[in-house]
């Protein structure tokens, strides 16, 4: 039997396709949540080298 015809490949394909769909769905869901949170006015801040408005004094923020 050719190795690529082995039934083990079918099992692996089912795992790969399933996991791919789950991860794709997760990306879409997180993107949609981000859009909704932005639309609802949630504060967005950078946590690396950007200014964090919430840490500035009130008159500068």
């Amino acid at each position, binding site marked *: 039997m050719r*190795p690529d015809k082995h039934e*083990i490949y079918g099992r692996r394909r*089912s*795992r790969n396709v*399933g996991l791919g769909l789950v991860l794709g769905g997760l990306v879409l*869901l997180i993107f949609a949540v981000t*859009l909704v949170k932005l639309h609802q006015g949630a504060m967005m801040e950078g946590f690396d080298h950007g200014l964090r408005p919430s840490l500035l004094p009130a008159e500068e923020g």
Partner: protein
Amino acid sequence: MTDAAWTHDTPAHEAQFADYVELLKPRVMRLVLFTALVGLVAAPVVVHPVIALAALVCIGAGAGASGALNMWWDRDIDAVMARTADRPIPSGRVAPEAALAIGITLAGFAVVMLGLVANLTAAGLLAFTIFFYVVVYSAWLKRATPQNIVIGGAAGAFPPMIGWAVATGGVAPESLLMFALIALWTPPHFWALALFRNADYARAGVPMLPVTAGPRATRNQVLAYALLLAPVAMAPAFSLVGGPVYLAGALVLNALFLRGAWRIWRRDEAAAQADGHAVEKRFFGFSILYLFLQFGLFLVEAALRGAGLAPAGWPSLF
């Protein structure tokens, strides 16, 4: 390495995607998701549908993580019980280490994501639920005491509280009543199962009530918990989430539940053996339907309130 070597080195029962889905206990997850959805919808704060969906995905992932970790811990006794021998780990389709890794990863993901999507109260409740189910129930109580279901059943009662917390950010008498409803429903539900799966539990050394105290004591307890459940299940009728439709439906459902418990109580083991535990099996099946319908009544009341059809002046005692 050649392809031929790859196929020779892999186990004969290498898992398919469906095996990993089974590892997450999809039937339990369905009940968890439904009761969490009811808590979320019945709460007096409207949640954006996308946030609600994301929160439910997180709660489902948390339930799945609990299922995977439970199957990892119980793999030794699952192998000797007929009901569980074909689960992914004892049947050899999923390696125990893989189940443990999936459970821990999924649990962390679910809790962190729920904290980000909803709020810290909901995330904290989800984390506590996973801990309670895996550590308190599975690892500690299940093999230690015949009261395992009474205390461990609380784990299954948290989802509506989590759903409520997603919407409101807190805990309320209504969400506590939903918790109490499931917590008191769990013992008669599982003891009915244990009555006709007694040999399974005895073989695995799990001290379920019929194994330690005998079928007579178990039948008494089923009726006692059904009697305790009825008033608790009807109390939400007189709260913010209840109303006349809930009251009428709960009256019928609890009368049927009590009738089933009464039928189990009034017969002995000889009669049960004679008809293959038909009454116990019927009660077990009905108890699942009971919980779905009972929580469905909350949805009906929420829909009526949303449509402005809730009667004015309905008493609220909580």
